[in-house]
């Protein structure tokens, strides 16, 4: 095994470069990370390749390291902030005159995973689009106001976590009602972007490169009536959302009764247990909203892996689902979603 040495010229194809960059962002070494990026640019590596093959790839490794409990949340945040500075440095050094239309890019309200979207913003800018990046967690009304003021040719909307899909739906419907077609992106829209179609998005892209190609090839899509996909959800969804506080509070009491050891929890442990219960209810609500039990089973699979890495035994998650299930006996669809989740947790 050869140890990568960051000597000029950098070899872009050396896998060691990725490890080196990961170390730099993990240490929050902005100077080092910016240096790597600008050196590569000076060596005529196309900026798109630096963004996709170095920055984006490193970011997905950062996510994996967090999930595997090898990195703390704080380190993950530091790495993301450092990668953003590297991306910004790259952006300042690649000026392009816009020759396509104008596009608005935003993360759904409540969605904070901004780096992949920033990369998309830069990729589109390099492709000649005039880009307005509105940032993470953009409230729907602010997004629509922006559309009326700037009249873009497209909105690119990102959603990484499926619990935000009802809000994504409101945003998509509002954008299309304002006459602006929407391209959706991000893991939250499900396998092959299946949920994006249900929510009425005009297109879906798996990643930045695909989005750039889609927007360059056939845009705008033919106009459709924005109200066709405007209503989803049913009374079970409404019940779960409206009774969220009760479902969590009652569930918490049931957990306390079942596990006397929880009485000794400090405020932070109680808060994080409440937060986990909140996730169970939110993913259940999203699964009901879209009639897609897979949203919930994907959540249980993922949570199980994350908990395993943190040495939390599966029965904890199982109990969490069970205490919510016990409160929803009159709601057959909710029960079947929860049962689908519970079946994943059976040893």
């Amino acid at each position: 095994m050869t140890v990568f040495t960051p000597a000029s010229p950098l070899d872009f194809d050396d896998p060691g470069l990725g490890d080196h960059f990961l170390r730099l962002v993990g240490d929050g070494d902005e100077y080092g990370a910016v240096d790597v990026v600008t050196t590569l640019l000076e060596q005529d590596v196309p900026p798109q390749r630096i963004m996709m093959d170095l920055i984006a790839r490193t970011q997905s490794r950062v996510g994996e390291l967090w999930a595997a409990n090898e990195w703390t949340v704080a380190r993950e945040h530091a790495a993301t902030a450092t990668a953003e500075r590297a991306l910004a440095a790259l952006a300042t050094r690649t000026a392009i005159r816009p020759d396509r239309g104008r596009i608005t890019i935003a993360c759904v309200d409540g969605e904070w995973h901004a780096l992949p979207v920033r990369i998309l913003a830069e990729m589109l800018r390099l492709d000649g689009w005039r880009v307005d990046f509105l940032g993470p967690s953009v409230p729907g009304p602010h997004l629509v106001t922006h559309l009326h003021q700037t009249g873009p040719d497209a909105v690119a909307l990102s959603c990484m976590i499926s619990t935000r899909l009802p809000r994504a739906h409101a945003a998509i419907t509002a954008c299309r009602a304002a006459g602006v077609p929407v391209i959706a992106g991000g893991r939250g829209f499900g396998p092959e972007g299946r949920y994006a179609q249900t929510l009425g998005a005009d297109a879906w892209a798996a990643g930045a490169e695909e989005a750039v190609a889609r927007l360059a090839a056939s845009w705008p899509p033919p106009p459709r009536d924005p109200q066709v996909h405007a209503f989803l959800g049913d009374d079970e969804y409404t019940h779960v959302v409206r009774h969220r506080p009760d479902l969590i509070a009652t569930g918490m009491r049931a957990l306390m009764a079942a596990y006397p050891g929880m009485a000794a929890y400090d405020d932070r442990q109680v808060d994080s247990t409440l937060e986990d219960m909140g996730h169970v209810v939110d993913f259940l609500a999203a699964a009901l909203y879209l009639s897609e039990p897979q949203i919930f089973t994907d959540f249980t699979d993922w949570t199980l892996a994350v908990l395993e890495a943190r040495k939390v035994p599966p029965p904890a998650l199982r109990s969490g689902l069970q205490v919510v299930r016990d409160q929803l006996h009159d709601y057959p669809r909710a029960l079947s979603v929860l049962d689908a989740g519970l079946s994943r947790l059976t040893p």
Partner: protein
Amino acid sequence: MRTLVPAPALLRAALDAASEAVLLCSTPDDTILLVNAAAATLVPDVAALHGALTAGHDTFTVEHAGRHIAGKRRVLDADHHAWYLRDRTEEVNRAAALSAERARAAFLAESGRRLSASLHQGRCLRTTAELAVAHLADAAVVILPPDRRRSTWLRLTTGERIIEGSVPERELSEVPGLVEVLGGFPPIPSRWLDAAQAPSWLGLGEIGALLVTPLPGNAAPAGALILAKREGRFSTDDEILARVFAARAGAAISAAGLYREQVDTAAVLQADLLPPELMQMDGVELVGSYQAAHEAMRIGGDFYDVFEPTHPGGDTVLALGDVCGTGPEAAVLTGKVRQTLRALHLVDAAPAEMLRVLNQALLQSGRQHRFVTLVVGALRRAEHGRVRLTLATGGHPPPLVLRNDGTVEEVPVSGTLIGAVTETVVRPAEVELAPGELCLLYSDGLTEARGGPTATDQYGEARLHAALSTCQGLPATATVERVRQLVSDWMRGGARDDIAMLAVRAPVRTALSLRDGGQSQSSFALNTRRVRQRS
């Protein structure tokens, strides 16, 4: 054709008396044996139907001498069959009129929906051209009334992309009828316009017919719609439909124009009231974040500002405050407070002094019940990469300091509300940040954010302390972003109050991108700029 075999007179008389048109035929050789009176009236030249009759089908529909004729074959015996003919002309015309009417209704419904969708004028113009080309003509040009002696136009031809441009006002008269329409006079009917006179700047090429329709606006025309057909003419129906469509398009375009005027005016006012883009200081990380309450206008009660040193080696002054109330009134007071602070900074007032003078100024401005909570800090770099802050507050949550060991301290400052009573008590405090340490100034919208599992709990100071302690070692941008994220998750989206934050951090190492001054043409570049766009 063979000679007709004469039919019995009685049979002929019976068939002639019938109102239905009948042709009696011999089957083996497909010859017509008898044409009754009704059939002779309907089809004077029966031979013209020969093709349809011998095609081998049991029914046919043909157009003959301007009439639509339908036939149905009936077998009479082994050697004979009859064709019963029916005049469908009226039916066909009615069906055509109905489907044309349906198409018109669908077109106008689609127009209404798409034109009312956007308040952006550019989009309205594009939609107008797209709809016109899809339903009314081969090419459409939308022209706006002249502004500073030039008219902007937008053209769409079938199968091509939209092209935009502008033309000097004097050339508008080259398009027959256009000046009249833009001047608010009734349009000239299409048949009086000479299509050949269309000037080349319209870019329509060879055209057969031209129609200039006004786009009615708010008491003055919003513009004109020029339609062109490659061949043929515009019928009276076409003209009426174009005028109905133009009325909708004109209303949408002029509404968008009004909206733009208001947005432009509001933007001028807001520009001074929104949080500033923060300068990048050497040796200090400075990050601001402002999130407006969802319902309020985008300018509200919270603000922050940073004033650069007035002389080399002088202090940088930070201020973060919360004016009571939201909306325009709060914004006006915010502007006053910021301006007063800026002036006080010019005379090198210390933070505690600034608060006292500001209190006097607000009390003397005469407006009752207008107060503000505020934290002011004077910032300077000290030796070994340390940063020193003198802080003073007036009725404001004390700033927090995140130490390198992860502990979170409250800065021991206190002071009374500003603008409420004449006697203020201000106790300032000094804070020193070692490299890696951070001081967070925030407004109470942060700790009073309601949400959590019960949806009504306040986020509270304990959670803020806990959240901040997990940010040890993070750059200031990441810390501010993380706190924002945690509070947003807590509220699950519904911010009821403004939230402002300003973080100062002594960096561990001077970063290259900061040395560059952080100037950027990128679409995002600086955290503060992003915050400004969206909040």
